[in-house]
């Protein structure tokens, strides 16, 4: 099977799979690269899914299964592979995994985010011995035991509630004032109503202690400075997330200070043909539905990029004849008039190729050639701009086309 794709999507969560649905449905040869065995991203590790519109009764893993089935219905391909680098060679991009290389004309980065590590004393030492980042993986161990959950966002509170199905007691350590949590009101209410859940307010965990296995955590009240040695059998960390962007270290793709990818409303990164979608993108709201929306936008933009670029490569850059490119807009009368006059010159009979670029529709090429005013006419030979005429009189065009041509003949 060919390793050349129209669109490669890095990451198989809701953003990536939505992009795959849009891409493959538009007949683009589309590949989703997922580093894990199972697609679905962070969502697939949760249980409940109550706010995805139009699907009132589902679970998080089931919804993600349906995303995948939907993408495969339109022939999107899926492969397991962790991407380690992306090389941008203009219209061809090389996507490298540990043991393979793919080429793509467009790339959508949808790698999402992963749990943040706090780096407190004992965290490393007790990994797998009472320190956990995955409730569904480890909850069973804690049947009849007591655990501490650090964090107060949606995942912290949701997973704390899940853990009460196994553990006898779940204590949530919250850094905010009493009664204040970052999680949605709905989750907060459920936590408050759960007999097995207790709280430490104004508090952080400073150290994890034990012998072989976790025995206790040191909880520090940040207001009073008071420290409590609190006995527990396990500690679950849900202290926010960090974007999965380490693999972009050697690329030119712009990240913000927190390593999220910078992209505009059209999901375009600073590199043409490379898009960012979902939790990995710098934005405020990170939900399955917004990730899916990002993915759709990115795929539609990538498709129009591909069309514009393919047209340009084929008709202008690779043209054997010299090309006259007119930048115009159907809403600009002057540009329409100029084009009309241009056509009367009969340049095609004299060996020129005529190409029109609608500046409103084709921003990619318009921006690449720094066209700020219309009409603008470019004469391009062998892919290089030989003449640039901004707002030209028709005589000017004649001069650089017909007269120039006769000169060459003589």
């Amino acid at each position, binding site marked *: 099977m060919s390793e050349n794709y129209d669109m490669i999507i890095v990451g198989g969560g809701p953003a990536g799979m939505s992009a795959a649905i849009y891409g493959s449905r538009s007949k683009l040869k589309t590949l989703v690269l997922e580093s*894990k065995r199972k697609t679905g991203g962070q969502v697939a590790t949760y249980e409940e899914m109550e706010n995805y519109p139009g699907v009132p009764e589902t679970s998080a893993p089931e919804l993600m299964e349906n995303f995948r089935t939907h993408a495969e219905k339109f022939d999107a391909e899926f492969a397991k592979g962790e991407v380690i680098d992306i090389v941008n060679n203009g219209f061809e991009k090389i996507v490298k995994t540990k043991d393979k290389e793919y080429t793509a004309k467009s790339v959508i980065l949808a790698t999402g985010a992963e749990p943040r590590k706090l780096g407190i004393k004992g965290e490393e030492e007790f990994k797998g*011995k009472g320190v956990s*980042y*995955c409730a569904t993986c480890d909850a069973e161990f804690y049947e009849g035991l007591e655990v501490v959950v650090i964090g107060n966002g949606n995942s912290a509170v949701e997973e704390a509630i899940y853990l009460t199905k196994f553990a006898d007691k779940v204590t949530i350590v919250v850094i905010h004032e009493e009664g204040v949590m970052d999680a949605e009101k709905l989750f907060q209410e459920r936590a408050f109503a759960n007999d097995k859940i207790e709280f430490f307010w104004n508090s952080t965990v400073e150290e994890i202690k034990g012998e072989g*296995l976790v025995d206790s955590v040191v909880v520090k009240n940040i207001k009073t400075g008071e420290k409590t040695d609190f006995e527990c059998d396990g500690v679950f960390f849900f202290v926010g997330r960090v974007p999965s962007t380490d693999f972009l270290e050697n690329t030119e793709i712009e990240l913000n200070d927190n390593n999220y990818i910078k992209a505009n409303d059209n999901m375009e990164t600073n590199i043409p043909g490379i898009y960012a979608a979902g939790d990995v993108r710098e934005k405020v709201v990170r939900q399955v539905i917004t990730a899916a929306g990002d993915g759709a936008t990115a795929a539609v933009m990538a498709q129009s990029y591909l069309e514009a670029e393919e047209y340009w490569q084929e008709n202008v850059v690779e043209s054997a004849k010299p090309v006259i490119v007119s930048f115009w807009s159907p809403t600009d009368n002057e540009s329409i008039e100029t084009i009309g006059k241009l056509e009367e010159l009969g340049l095609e009979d004299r060996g020129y190729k005529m190409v029109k670029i609608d500046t409103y529709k084709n921003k990619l090429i318009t921006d690449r050639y720094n066209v700020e005013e219309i009409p603008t006419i470019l004469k391009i030979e062998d892919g290089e701009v030989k003449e640039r005429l901004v707002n030209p009189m028709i005589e000017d065009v004649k001069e650089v086309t017909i007269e120039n041509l006769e000169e060459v003949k003589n």
Partner: protein
Amino acid sequence: MLELNKDNFDEEVLESDGVVLVDFWGENCDLCLDLMPDVEDLAEEYGDDVKFCKLNIKGNRRLAMGQQVLGLPSIVLYKDGEKKEHLSGEDVDRDAIEEAIKELI
């Protein structure tokens, strides 16, 4: 890979000479399932020097906890019945396991 349970754990691991690797895993643990093919791969490569085993924690929770395993995935290496290395968490990958094996053989 040898499947372990309550009945054969002591005999196959704790009373066994040489290096034994135990892959503690669970059906709800995606990371474990991701890691399993890599461990099977290593079993092909180092099978002559290391006894490769796996333990599904379902029904064997106490056994795992007795080995101080309270989180998945956990890869534990024993030499002559003595626990030598316990790798766990998201960072455990093929390379980390291979390194640990090389240190013991």
